[in-house]
């Protein structure tokens, strides 16, 4: 096998600049972007607005911040919302863009934005960065002392406006969770075309950070596929010149697994970055995430407990950020008040628990970490085989072969031959392995664990078990005991 590498003809600056201009010309506000001015503005930002520096500061000082989602179309309302977040101790503020913006339908946005601003009632499910343009977006950023990150869209306008993250990686989430027909090859092409920006800024001394989602597990599903794709995302980002990144670690509700994954993800990403020669790309933390599961709409108590659980796991794992949803996650886009009260709860746990610097050990963490690590390694080995050392080429083939696979994807190019269910203690196990290259003895382990649950429930686990498990954590019951009265 050839030496490990990332297939990546990073396109030259002239071509890149042309593409970026073309991209910007799609909407009038694009003219507001002057690349050199943008670089200068970025360099003038205080550390408290520079994402990667904030992450490092939190980590070094042993603090945490919530990593929320926040997006409402009307500028004044968005400013208020973000100031509220800051008051609740949030120093990392992602700006969720609306779905039309994500799909480049700017006329539609413009109409809805006008209407929203007129009536004061939001008609868009996020903050349309492009339509607001550099000037308005800077107003937002300059009105809150925190670091900002564009979510889903925004690109050069967001950076010019002073946001300090940019996705240099080949993002599995857009392909695996947001797209219907896009093929892996198309994703690769798109990534190579558009991600150069991060390197362009890096060359000019502006380090843009990114979080890695990996292939979002849309349901209770072992995290090995996701972590393998986190590694791929990290490598592709580094190849584009990204110098700062950190993984989101999707918590599924089993404490031993969640904490094992929080340990494993950054460790194995570091290992592969080094192996591939990207020693100068730093990992600035790890961020347990409440996605992709979800509190149910009408259960406020449960929603608070759920977010407290994830906050607690983050605090015990000594992370520097936690991706949390509000108590209204199940109900709809949350209000300013909901954000505040939700993240106040998280802050209480951060301040009380995180700062105790608790040295925790859980017997099962070691086991879960070993299991997942072995799975991740054999998946990545197979991918490098398929690509004859090239991780990107290998990934394309791996997806086609179902060596990378995940359930419930909207994308028709996904094999969708795998399925996960919880075991008797709520840990996620593979019910169907599809073509995942999972070592035999580990498959056995999954089967035994599922058997324990089948015994407990007195029936075989199947598709319907998996469907029921979709809501398990949300409803506050991940297998375990039968009802008290029974």
């Amino acid at each position, binding site marked *: 096998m050839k030496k490990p590498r990332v297939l990546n003809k990073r396109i030259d600056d002239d071509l890149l600049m042309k593409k970026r201009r073309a991209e910007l010309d799609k909407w009038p506000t694009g003219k507001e972007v002057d690349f050199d001015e943008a670089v200068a503005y970025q360099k003038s930002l205080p550390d408290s607005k520079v994402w990667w520096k904030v992450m490092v500061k939190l980590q070094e000082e042993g603090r945490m911040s919530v990593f929320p989602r926040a997006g409402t179309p009307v500028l004044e309302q968005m400013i208020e919302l973000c100031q509220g977040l800051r008051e609740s101790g949030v120093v990392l503020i992602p700006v969720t863009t609306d779905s039309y913006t994500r799909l480049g339908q700017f006329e539609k946005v413009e109409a809805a934005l006008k209407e929203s601003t007129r009536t004061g009632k939001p008609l868009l499910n996020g903050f349309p960065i492009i339509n607001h343009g550099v000037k308005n977006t800077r107003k937002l950023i300059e009105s809150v002392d925190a670091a900002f990150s564009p979510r889903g869209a925004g690109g050069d306008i967001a950076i010019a406006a002073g946001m300090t993250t940019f996705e240099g990686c080949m993002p599995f989430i857009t392909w695996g969770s947001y797209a219907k027909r896009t093929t892996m090859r198309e994703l690769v092409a798109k990534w190579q075309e558009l991600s150069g920006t991060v390197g362009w800024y890096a060359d000019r001394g502006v380090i843009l950070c990114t979080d890695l989602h990996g292939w979002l597990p849309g349901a209770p599903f072992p995290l090995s596929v996701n972590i393998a794709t986190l590694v791929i995302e990290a490598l592709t980002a580094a190849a584009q010149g990204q110098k700062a990144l950190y993984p989101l670690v999707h918590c599924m509700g089993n404490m031993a697994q969640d904490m094992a994954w929080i340990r494993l993800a950054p460790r194995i990403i570091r290992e592969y970055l080094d192996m591939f020669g990207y020693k100068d790309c730093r990992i600035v933390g790890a961020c347990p995430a409440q996605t992709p599961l979800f509190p149910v709409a009408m259960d406020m108590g449960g929603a608070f407990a759920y977010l407290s659980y994830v906050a607690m796991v983050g605090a015990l794992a000594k992370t520097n950020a936690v991706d949390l949803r509000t108590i209204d996650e199940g109900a709809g886009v949350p209000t300013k008040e909901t954000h505040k009260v939700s993240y106040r709860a998280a802050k209480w746990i951060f301040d009380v628990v995180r700062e105790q610097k608790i040295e925790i050990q859980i017997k099962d963490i070691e086991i879960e970490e070993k299991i997942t690590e072995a799975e991740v390694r054999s998946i990545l080995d197979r991918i490098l085989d398929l690509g004859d050392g090239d991780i990107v080429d290998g990934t394309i083939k791996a997806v086609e072969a179902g060596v990378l696979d995940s359930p419930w994807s*909207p994308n028709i190019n996904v094999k969708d031959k795998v399925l996960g269910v919880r075991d008797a203690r709520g840990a996620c196990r593979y019910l169907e392995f599809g073509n995942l290259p999972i070592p035999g003895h580990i498959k056995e382990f999954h089967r035994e664990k599922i058997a324990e649950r089948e015994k407990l429930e007195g029936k075989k686990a199947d598709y319907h078990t998996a469907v029921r498990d979709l809501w398990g954590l949300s409803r506050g019951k991940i297998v375990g005991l039968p009802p008290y009265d029974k």
Partner: protein
Amino acid sequence: MKRVPTVITGTVGMDAHVIGTKVLSRALRDSGFKVVELGMQVSPEEFISVAQETRADAILMTSLYGMAELDLKDFNEKRLEAGLGDILLYIGGNLVIGRSDPGEVEKKFKALGFDRVYPPETDTEAGIADLKKDLKARGKI
């Protein structure tokens, strides 16, 4: 059911939340329906043309992302023009943006031509039971 009714499923507009419609589609199949599963991000027009081709008895739309109202503004006229006046129209999910009163939402979408409107996290069985009832009432099963 003596006759196997045809139903169409999918998320409307730009909604990418596909899990629900997948679960729903499988449940419909399991209870004997012929399901034309269009998956995510189906345009109103596509729903209509597919309904014409397949002579579907019902469309069960899903939308979670909160913008269904915009997506369906003139759906009702179009489907009437297309001569689909008597097709059953159901929709479920997080139909508006933010926490909302189910009654309000139901009114809104009935005004848009829907026969039944379901709040978030509706159990598929409930919808399927309604569907059978409505089809019987119309002598389609």
